[in-house]
């Protein structure tokens, strides 16, 4: 039974990734002007040169199946084409250079948000109607209604421009030169602090609302009533009966929400000029650098699908009910 669940989920994820790649192919064909015109980037190319290029790139072959198969092969081998903006660099190289700053920023922001959001949500749900619940819920709702970049702009204005506690932009101080490793690390963390806080604050609201409703729902279950009837203390009920079961749906919903989070959080990088995939997206948008944009879309959507798959598998492992 367990392996069938696993296979079904993995096949489903592969199918989704395949659909994403196909969608990417279709988008590429939808682009204004024929693909060869875009690739050559010069309206004055002679007909002969154009024909030669078409043959070389296989554009004279039919769209389906030849071009599609070629595209799938190239994508599978990691060839996403060449950037317009970054002097014909490979898209994969452009993306690789921007990947780590984003991973660090989001990784840290997510972890902080999960810890604080879930804790706040669990506590508000437990002490439903109490002062923390009242204030926490209000703040969560306000944060939920704020775009990430608005939070970012306000934090930037107060802590970087107003108080001068943190640098305003970038990832490292330019011309920091021959400092020791320790001071460079400190510099890095100084730059990281505000964007990470922004990402975390943006997410805490959502996660705490989620966790709160999940805890409230779990506290209404029969087994909690049983535990109460057995005379367990309310702290004990929360820790050993309600929390583990409330965490399940919360964690899954966090994974499912990842797609939205990534999108909105792109803007945080823009506010703080953080050199990750978000600022790359905006640069590519301004230059209409379609190969890079499509590479970003492919990378982000596949990551989200994989994250969902992992969440499904963890969920299936922890909760035997969903496996059947």
């Amino acid at each position, binding site marked *: 039974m367990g392996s069938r669940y696993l296979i079904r989920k993995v096949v489903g994820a592969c199918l*989704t990734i395949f*659909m*994403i790649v196909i969608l990417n192919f279709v*988008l590429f064909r*939808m*682009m*204004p002007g024929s693909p060869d015109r875009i690739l050559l980037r010069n309206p004055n190319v002679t007909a002969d040169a154009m024909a030669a290029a078409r043959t070389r790139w296989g554009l004279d072959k039919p769209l389906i199946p030849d071009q599609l198969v070629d595209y799938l092969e190239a994508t599978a081998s990691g060839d996403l084409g060449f950037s317009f903006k970054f002097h014909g660099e490979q898209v994969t190289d452009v993306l690789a250079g921007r990947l780590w700053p984003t991973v660090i920023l989001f990784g840290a922001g997510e972890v902080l948000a999960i810890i604080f959001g879930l804790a706040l949500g669990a506590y508000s749900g437990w002490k439903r109607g109490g002062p923390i619940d009242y204030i926490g819920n209000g703040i969560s*709702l*306000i944060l*939920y*209604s*704020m*775009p*990430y*970049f*608005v939070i970012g*702009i*306000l934090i*930037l*204005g107060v802590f970087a*421009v*107003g108080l001068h506690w943190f640098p*305003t932009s970038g990832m490292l101080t330019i011309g920091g030169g021959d400092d020791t490793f320790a001071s460079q690390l400190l510099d890095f963390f100084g730059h990281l602090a505000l964007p990470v806080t922004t990402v975390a604050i943006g997410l805490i609201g959502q996660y705490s*609302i*989620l966790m709160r*409703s*999940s805890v409230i*729902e779990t506290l209404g279950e029969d087994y909690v009533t049983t535990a109460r009837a057995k005379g367990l203390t309310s702290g004990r009920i929360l820790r050993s009966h309600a929390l583990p079961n409330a965490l399940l*749906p919360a964690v899954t919903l966090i994974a*499912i929400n*990842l*797609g*939205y989070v*990534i*999108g*909105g959080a*792109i*803007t945080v990088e*823009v*506010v703080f000029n953080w050199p990750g995939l978000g600022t790359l*997206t*905006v640069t590519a*948008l*301004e230059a*209409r650098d*379609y190969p890079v*944009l*499509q590479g*970003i*879309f492919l990378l*982000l*959507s596949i990551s*989200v*699908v994989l994250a*969902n798959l992992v969440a499904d598998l963890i969920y299936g492992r922890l909760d035997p009910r969903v496996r059947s």
Partner: protein
Amino acid sequence: MTAPAVPEQSVRNERLRLRLQAIRTFARRFASRPDGVIGVIVLLVFTVLAIAPSLFVGDLQTATTATGPSLSPPTAANLLGTDELGRDILNLTIHGTRISMVIGLLATIVTIFLGALVGIISGYVGGRVDTVLMRITDFFLVLPTFVLALILAPIILDLVGANSEFFGIRVTLLVIVVVIGVTSWASTARIIRSQALSVKELAFVGRARVIGSGPGHIMWRHILPNVMNLIVANTVLVFGGSILTETTLSFIGLGDPFAPSWGQVLNAAESAGAMGLGAWWYVVPPSVCIVLVVLAFTLVGSALDDVLNPRLRVRR
């Protein structure tokens, strides 16, 4: 024995009375939710601003008609200061209300239309149609739709040309509407499908089928009215979400500089480096408006959800 003839007039009166009673019950339940009432008041204020912005602050100022000094802090002449071109921020913000709300409204209509269509067909028809439609829906649910919107918008813009107009609305704005609609219908479809599935099993739908009603007629006359409560509550929530998405897309640079929404004003502030120069008055007014409106929609939406669907509350 024949049934006594009921006068047409009294049937109509009875129907009217029942409908009025339903409305009154709804109003009473909704009024018992203070958060929902506050939300409605906030939305009413912004609706008035959106309908007649010129009444309050005069026509929209442009780079050529701007009169104020560059990046001036709040003064008596410019209550909320000016931007780098000397435009009055209060003027921009209030005119931004109309653009943000109209784009939000249109995007919501597209989203709800697509979501309701897919949800009702999928739930009622079932079988293979349901499987295919729900596969597509799940695909859109997993996808980082905002990123898809980011690459769709410039592609469509380049295809249709950014400076054309369509029924007096600038195409740039319509592209944003379409892109938001196409990328955000999936969760609506899921919610409506689940209700359509249970409505389909009710006796009156079976009766309608027995007397020979076609699927189109049943979906339109029987399923749709019975999922309407979900559609209404969902519309309000989607409206807030659409405004949020529009704001973010404009901030990233996909908005229309000639029709500044709140997101577009923030985009201009970002490119002018307003925050670095300490020009908080440039950033705070549009931000406050965004938060107020989206918050109001969330409050009204969840209050409506509680009142209209007490059992079917959707976990968010």
